[in-house]
């Protein structure tokens, strides 16, 4: 009996030794993301699967809601316990962290992988600080899309995609007459700001858009553009249902999936929801760029790599960066998430009809950056307030409100 016990204990000790050794061998990463909707989670899972296949250990810390995840991340960074990786958009949001020396550079992975040759210059510039790569781009999103339910369009008797705003509003009238909700409106400030921007692009063009957001130009032409944008926005308000206030974007997409609503203004991540629901682009639903728009607004997702002071995590971060930039992963991820691969050298044949349109616009350079790329978080917040106040019954005077728009840059 005693001998048995000894053997048993030795076995336990040995097993314990083995498992600890195993855990140490494997690069472990804790991933903090806000990707919790069906399409987003499926896309993240593509990276996770490949990461695990290459010997990594994945710990998922998903928090629903972009703001909530950001708050949790910020708290953990300040507390000195950052996760191994964080999903976030490319742009000024990461700049403060990098300048404070809180992120690991992944420049050696970027050099070894020749990222400079395969990424569009605009994205490469945005992931680099002082010439070093800090972020790894997972994919780019077009944000100027109008999705429409083909079933709803048929019911309303709309034969083809409207090309101008007049045609568009005529279509909305038909949808309304058919007893459908014309616009599935996502009533959160960030969503409203995106609609504002896509309309603005259709009114002022690519140069005008960059002038406003990058040069902060408030000449008469810019004010006039903002004014026209606000007028269209006010007009849209008449085509929105009662339950729109505070609605999530994926709930709005669900209204299209069930053909209760006609159109939705949203970024192409909405395609992920359609895909999860078994709907096919071009067949069940259509996608068009906002009427009269010369191009599209884009935003790019990426992973940040906080300094954790743990050598194993550093290794895992490099492995993760390699996995994300793998051409096959980029395509597979984009299919699930509805985005466009950040790499330009991937096999585009698998992409759906909408993504093909997006890739075309992108390679033609007909793109302008999202506000999160060019504005600080405070300015983004001010823009949200501005649009939200106007949308929810602020002053009816578009001309006077347009003048106030430029206060967001202060």
């Amino acid at each position: 009996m005693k001998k048995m016990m000894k053997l048993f204990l030795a076995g336990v000790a040995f097993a314990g030794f083995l498992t600890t050794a195993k855990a140490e061998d494997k690069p472990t990463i804790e991933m903090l993301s806000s990707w919790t909707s069906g399409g987003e989670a499926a896309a993240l899972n593509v990276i996770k699967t490949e990461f695990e296949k290459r010997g990594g250990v994945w710990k998922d810390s998903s928090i629903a809601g972009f703001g909530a995840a950001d708050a949790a991340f910020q708290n953990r960074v300040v507390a000195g316990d950052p996760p191994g990786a964080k999903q976030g958009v490319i742009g000024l949001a990461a700049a403060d962290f990098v300048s404070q020396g809180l992120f690991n550079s992944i420049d050696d992975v970027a050099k070894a992988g020749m990222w400079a040759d395969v990424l569009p210059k605009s994205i490469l510039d945005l992931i680099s600080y002082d010439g070093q790569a800090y972020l790894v781009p997972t994919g780019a999103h077009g944000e100027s899309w109008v999705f429409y339910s083909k079933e709803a369009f048929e019911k309303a008797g709309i034969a083809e995609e409207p090309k101008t705003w007049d045609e568009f509003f005529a279509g909305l009238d038909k949808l309304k007459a058919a007893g459908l909700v014309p616009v599935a409106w996502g009533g959160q400030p960030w969503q409203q700001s995106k609609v504002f921007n896509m309309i603005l692009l259709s009114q002022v063009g690519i140069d005008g858009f960059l002038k406003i957001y990058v040069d902060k130009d408030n000449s008469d032409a810019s004010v006039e553009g903002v004014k026209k944008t606000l007028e269209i926005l006010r007009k849209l308000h008449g085509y929105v249902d009662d339950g729109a206030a505070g609605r999530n974007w994926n709930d709005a997409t669900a209204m299209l999936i069930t053909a209760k609503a006609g159109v939705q203004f949203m970024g192409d991540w909405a395609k992920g929801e359609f895909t999860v629901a078994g709907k096919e682009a071009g067949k069940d639903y259509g996608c068009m760029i906002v009427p009269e728009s010369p191009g599209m607004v884009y935003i790019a997702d990426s992973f940040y790599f906080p300094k954790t002071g743990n050598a194993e995590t550093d290794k895992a971060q490099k492995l993760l960066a390699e996995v994300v930039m793998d051409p096959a992963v980029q395509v597979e991820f984009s299919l699930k998430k509805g985005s466009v691969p950040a790499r330009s050298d991937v096999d585009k044949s698998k992409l759906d009809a909408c993504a093909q349109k997006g890739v075309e616009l992108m390679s033609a350079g007909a793109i302008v950056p999202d506000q999160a790329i060019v504005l600080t978080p405070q300015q983004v917040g001010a823009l949200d307030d501005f649009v939200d106040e106007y949308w929810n019954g602020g002053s009816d005077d578009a001309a006077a409100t347009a003048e106030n728009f430029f206060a967001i840059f202060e």
Partner: protein
Amino acid sequence: MSMKRKTNLSATLALLPTWLVAAVVFIGTMAWSINLSFTNSTIFPSSSYVGLAQYAKLFSSVKWLASLHNVLIFGVLYVGGCLLLGFLLAAALDRKIRFESAFRTIFLYPYAMSFVVTGLIWQWMLNPTLGIQASVRSLGWESFVLDWVVNRDVAIYALVLAGVWQGAGLVMVIALAGMRGIEAEQWKAARIDGIPVWRIYVSIILPQLGPALAAAGMLLAMGVIKTYDIVVAMTNGGPGNATEVPAKFIMDNLFGRQNLGLATAGATVLVLGVIMIVAPFRYAMHMRSKAKGAC
């Protein structure tokens, strides 16, 4: 005399850790926050001082002013509503009805739920496309409107409704306990005099419940300053600024907008507001106990 000093010393020693914690954790962090409100910190604390610029910015912000206005409306109606409804419920239960304990449990139950759950439930019920409005309309009454959470003119009252639904149970329990402490002789005497029941409650019971209701009111009032979760769950501050509250303004600027300076300025204003309300109370109570010679 020396004996007294001795006990004082040991008491002081025993309380020392508590004092240290109070000084460092409460006062220290508060001082640090106030200090930050004079800097232009964005995402991380910075030490470049800008004087009162953050306060100037705060009070020129439409959103902040709207949030103060909203929390005032919400606070008065919420505390008042809870006290009134709670007292009425307690009076009803006090009538020696059947199944009293079952009713007590039902009325108190909402208080056991978090504000997030309460907020979500009421958000669903008041949402025009999901809740009461949709179900009444599906029964045939097509013009029925109940759109409180999405209507900017009444959204704040939707919050009050949900808040009162949750908080009234607490007041009921406290008031009921107070009522049970009132001697039965008073009831008998009042009955003999032929005083109507409602009059007994208003003129005899209510004055005696003063301290109990004041305690309940204080508990609720402290919740008002911190109101955050119910707003996030029900309306997220919308539509527009209709239900924005200071705590949410502060949280948004702290994290989402990476504006530590403005957020701490807002927090400082809140603390000052609380002190301004509480200080006269404390002073009055101090003076009263002094007058009684109890001090």
